[in-house]
């Protein structure tokens, strides 16, 4: 358990000369609900992509005592790393139940695989309750609304039993109540896991973040508590442009302090 | 040295034939994602157009040139009919288009047999295209030079149109995201039809050119269709310039291997090379990266 932390050092991702993530150092401990914020194009999604193996990167990403860079996506996933996508991606033709069951199953042996599922596995049952899709359990995922798909993705993370969770804008498009629910859920599951959340919603961040890392132009700009980050003039400058900004201006953009 | 020049020329020439056959596919398959197995039969239709024009006009020199635009129209119209009746409803399941158009190809072949007879017909080459041109002691068949020029010209015209014109943008946008194109004010139906017209029209042009090379018979298309698809695949889907490089590479590879082995072995080896190549570059010579998980 002690080793279950994420340690990123000198992580760099470049595309044909364009450096999207530039020498990022970052460590996240279990139980910490870490928010990753930054302007559009700062490199947040790319960072997650690099950790989860979707894009090649240089530098080092260590999790649970393993070096992740250079590994294939599915090998990283098997080390307990799970993620969601900025645009929800689920298996459209399979039902909600089947989506969750598959997410639960990469540890199953060939013999289990070629057998039929009997009933609803316990962890899937729990996830269904948690994400509130119990009524849609037999609906094909393709017919879910945008937000419902996001819930399903979170549910898949839960049953996948990932120890490191990276969520890319999980509450985009949710109503205020739904956001609160999601936030509480994240706090619950974050208690003994390592969770990284990318968000633009400052209110949401303020309510649920334990700590915040601000990314800008591929680099870590600031790191600390919500309050520290909000007060950081460099952060204000990145979000609001250079110069001094009134308290009111800062609040509309970065939320009430 | 002799062999070098001859074989490079033969390879480029073979490549230009492949390119002509594949150029329309680079549009309808590479851009629109339709796997049109009837493309070969559109080529055949172009060839029969040349044959009919020959019978109508008589003069070989004139009729060849006149046939080019007419075959373009014939191929194009066939394509539009296919698009409007069947393919229109199938853009979201591209693999199925392969089978539907295979059916179309069967029907068109049989139709050609019933209309033009099962035996092959001939379109004589015009006088200004017969025999070889002697350059530095090497002789190059005029017909092959003509096809080489035609292929390069067709490629340049198509590439420029796609890259720099509003029509080209519209075509690419429609292919990328149909509903978004529609809600951006583009009539996707008209665009699809136009794209298919051009792609299939190019097949017609290829057919006219092929009358200079080989037989005009109902199975003309089947000889080219697989190779043409391989050209597009090796070139990289959505990449017209990739098709050019792929066509010439395959042409030269075929003619070189064929020179030192046999045509059969060359064909098999070229297939093997393609499989090996796709191991290295699974998306073809030119790849278009995106961030989507599609």
């Amino acid at each position, binding site marked *: 358990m002690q080793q279950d932390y994420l340690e990123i050092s000198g992580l760099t991702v470049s*595309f044909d000369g*364009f450096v999207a993530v530039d020498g990022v150092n970052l460590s996240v401990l279990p139980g910490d609900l870490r928010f990753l914020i*930054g*302007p*559009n*194009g*700062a490199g*947040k*999604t*790319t960072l997650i992509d690099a950790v989860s193996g979707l894009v090649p990167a240089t530098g080092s990403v260590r999790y649970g005592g393993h070096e992740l860079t250079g590994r294939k996506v599915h090998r990283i996933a098997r080390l307990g790393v799970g993620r969601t996508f*900025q*645009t929800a991606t689920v298996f459209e033709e399979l039902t909600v139940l089947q989506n969750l069951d598959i997410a639960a199953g990469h540890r199953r042996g060939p013999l289990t695989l070629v057998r039929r599922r009997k009933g609803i596995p316990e962890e899937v049952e729990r996830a269904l309750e948690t994400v509130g899709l119990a009524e849609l359990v037999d609906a094909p995922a393709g*017919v*879910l*609304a*945008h*937000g*419902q798909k996001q*819930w399903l993705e979170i549910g898949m993370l839960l049953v996948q039993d990932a120890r490191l969770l990276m969520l890319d*804008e999980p509450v*985009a*498009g*949710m*109503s*205020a*109540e*739904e956001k609160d629910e999601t936030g509480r859920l994240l706090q619950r599951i974050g208690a003994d896991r390592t969770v990284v959340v990318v968000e*633009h919603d*400052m209110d949401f961040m303020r309510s649920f973040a334990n700590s915040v890392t601000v990314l800008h132009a591929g680099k870590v700009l600031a790191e600390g508590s919500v309050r520290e980050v909000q007060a950081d003039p460099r952060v204000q400058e990145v*979000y*609001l*442009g250079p110069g001094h900004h009134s308290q009111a201006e800062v609040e*509309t*953009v*970065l*939320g009430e302090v | 040295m002799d062999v070098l020049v001859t074989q490079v020329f033969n390879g480029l020439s073979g490549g230009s034939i492949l390119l002509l056959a594949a150029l329309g596919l680079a549009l309808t398959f590479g851009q629109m994602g339709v796997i049109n197995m009837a493309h070969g039969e559109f080529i055949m239709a172009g060839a029969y157009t040349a044959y009919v024009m020959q019978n109508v006009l008589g003069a070989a020199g004139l009729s060849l040139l006149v046939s080019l635009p007419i075959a373009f129209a014939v191929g194009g119209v066939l394509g539009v009919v296919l698009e409007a009746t069947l393919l229109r409803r199938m853009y979201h399941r591209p693999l199925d288009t392969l089978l539907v158009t295979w059916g179309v190809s069967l029907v068109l072949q049989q139709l050609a047999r019933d209309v033009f007879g099962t035996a092959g017909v001939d379109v004589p080459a015009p006088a200004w295209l017969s025999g070889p041109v002697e350059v530095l002691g090497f002789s190059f068949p005029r017909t092959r030079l003509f096809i080489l020029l035609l292929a390069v010209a067709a490629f340049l015209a198509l590439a420029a149109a796609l890259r720099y014109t*509003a029509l080209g*943008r*519209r075509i*690419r*946008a429609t292919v*990328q*995201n149909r*509903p*978004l*194109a*529609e*809600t*951006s*004010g*583009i*009539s*996707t*139906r008209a665009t699809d039809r136009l794209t298919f017209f051009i792609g299939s029209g190019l097949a017609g042009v290829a057919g006219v050119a092929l009358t200079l090379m080989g037989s005009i018979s109902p199975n003309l298309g089947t000889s080219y269709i697989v190779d043409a698809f391989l050209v597009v695949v090796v070139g990289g889907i*959505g990449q017209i310039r990739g098709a050019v490089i792929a066509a010439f590479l395959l042409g030269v590879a075929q003619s070189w291997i064929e020179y030192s082995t046999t045509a059969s072995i060359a064909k098999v080896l070229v297939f093997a090379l393609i499989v090996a190549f796709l191991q290295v570059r699974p998306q073809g010579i030119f790849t*278009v*990266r*995106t*961030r*989507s998980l599609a």
Partner: protein
Amino acid sequence: MLTMTDVEVGYGRTSVIHGVTIEVPADGVVAVMGHNGAGKTTLLRAAVGLLPTRSGRITLDGEDVTGTQPHQRVRRGLAYVPQGQQSFGQLTTLENLQVVADTKPRGTGLIDEALDLFPALKDLLGRRAGLLSGGQRQQLAIARALITQPRMLILDEPTEGIQPSVVAEIEQAILGLTRRGGLSVLLVEQHVGFALDAANHYYVLASGRVTAEGRGGTDSVTDVRSAMAI
């Protein structure tokens, strides 16, 4: 400007919108709110013509457009920003804008105007849209819609995934455009505060039916919150 009368819309055999009537007056801003899966996107897709209506009528500027294609509605002055940061992935940012500007007489000028509104896009003109970040793509999507100089703008959660400062700018821009006149807006937005700030009128949608409606303005926030809490 846009009316939808008693429309019924669905997918396959299931109906999602059951007899909804809404009206967007000329120069008016109308917000539609509701939970996930309430049917907001479905309603908007019917409004632009991406989904056929099973029954009911849609008029644009008094003319019946119920059976028409989306591009025909766009030519009548409608523009649509779909949910989910959509773009023409293989086209560059500039080409994404050009492809819309091509349909307009003085297209290049319009592109410049749009870029002034989203300066972040200026550095990205040569990059393929599929490679942009989510927020960059969303900005591009709004820019694309504005280039058509619409008289009726339909926005499906336009600020989703956009950094807060730009959200504020977009809100300002939309408010500015509507106040200048000549533009009606139909807006789906989770950000209730902004939505009501901008709107003259709001509808709350639940399970495909209108369950509440009323005048816009920040005063209505509590009404909407309680309507949505049900």
